[in-house]
């Protein structure tokens, strides 16, 4: 189990899901990625253990909670879930060739997709503090 307490606190400019995606408002759009915890769970901290990331087509309409892609490590495959409903308007296609970015900077350079959300509110999702509490409880 990854030691979640040794990490510095997660950015508080975004919201978090129990499936370890983050979503960050960026003007009229929102960026979605996965947390450092998700990356470590998949790769055990070895960036070479990540082998593949499958992202959706631009234009795809996603429901809240819908799986939009997959990320694969040497020994496991994890679904990527969209925290809110919206349309995919851009994908970070460089990630597919440079999975190590997810280990180095999951918060900024490691964004996965940009969506135009149906609604602006992210109130139902966890903030950084609540996500860290969730991780701490999960570790016990």
């Amino acid at each position, binding site marked *: 189990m990854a030691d979640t307490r040794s990490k510095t606190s997660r950015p508080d400019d975004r919201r978090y899901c129990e499936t370890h995606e983050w979503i960050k408002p960026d003007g009229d759009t929102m960026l979605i990625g996965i947390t450092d915890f998700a990356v470590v769970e998949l790769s055990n901290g*070895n960036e070479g253990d990540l*082998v*593949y990331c499958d992202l959706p087509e631009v234009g795809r309409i996603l429901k809240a909670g819908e799986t939009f892609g997959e990320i694969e490590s*040497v*020994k496991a*495959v994890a679904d990527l879930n969209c925290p809110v409903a919206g349309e995919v308007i851009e994908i970070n296609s460089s990630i597919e060739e440079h999975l190590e970015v997810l280990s180095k900077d999951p918060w900024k350079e490691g964004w996965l997709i940009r969506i135009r959300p149906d609604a602006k509110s992210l109130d139902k999702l966890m903030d950084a503090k609540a996500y860290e509490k969730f991780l701490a409880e999960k570790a016990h």
Partner: protein
Amino acid sequence: MKKTPLHDAHEKLSAKMVEFGGWHMPVQYGPILEEVVTVRTKAGLFDLSHMGRVRVTGADRERFLDKICTNFVAKIPLGSIRYSLFCRADGNPIDDLLVYRSEDEVFLVVNASNTDVDLAWMREHSKGFDVKIEDQTDALAMIALQGQASQATLQELTRDLDLASIGYYKFKYGTVSGIADMRVSRTGYTGEDGFELYVPKSEAVRVWNECLAHGAKHGLKPIGLGARDTLRLEAGMPLYGHEIDATHNPIEAGLEFGVSFKPEKGDWIGRAPLERLAQKKTRHLVGIKTAGPRVPRQGYELYAGPEKIGYVVSGSVSPTVNSNIGTAYVPLAHGKPGDKVEIDIKDKRQPAEYCALPFFSRTRK
């Protein structure tokens, strides 16, 4: 979750620990693929203490085992080891195992996740035989050295036993780390030369640490179960729950070498259906490799054009083959090495081709 005598040693080495077959085991100490390369080029040290170890004694031990084993136990030369399976009456396996035959006992090594089922099966079928079945799993640790530097490393710790004199799939006894009469076998689950040691529980940590200390100069490192799975798949070795299980029999899995239909063995549980199947099998286990980015995984389906023809049972990234590899069941008419096939991964098709098993083999000692 059960812990092996080496559990704390793994945590000290900062291993990532996971549940496996009811045990808390190291899945990796570092990057899995680097661990695979270490074993293929130097040597690795494995804790296999989770595996079930069973000693069978008594006057009827071989006659009893020849009733429940697929291989011909009474014909194993003394000091040799054979691969075998336990099958149900329908010919489908309960487990696969290694059988060590000595003058006064037969020693079995079974899978961790099946140990309880195996013991219950053995006891159920032992009625009427003069046998004693002893579960030695908790009394012994099991440590494997695998890779080209295994012999050099282990010989430094071994007295009164020349390891070079132990042939492949044979065992002898010697003094290892000062512990007399230790069982040492030239066996493994990696496709490399190597040894498996059966160590009294109280001495396990010391033997483990001495192997690491002496092996360091040869490049030996501790290796987790993640790399072990890739190593065994590259070497074409089956894993219960994947290539074989309650619906995948040893004949279709290509394990005929572990199944004896010799008349002298007499009847055994599962013999009749497997003997019939050997004459008319319709599907077989094949290797696949794919240059695509996705790794074949258990349950993915294989297509020849629009037709679904089979499914994957194991898969891995393979640093040795430098490709993503897997094993799959397909009809006999399919699977010729070099022929193309497609893997369906969540409704996307990835091209692959069949290849001969094993993916990797090294000339044996």
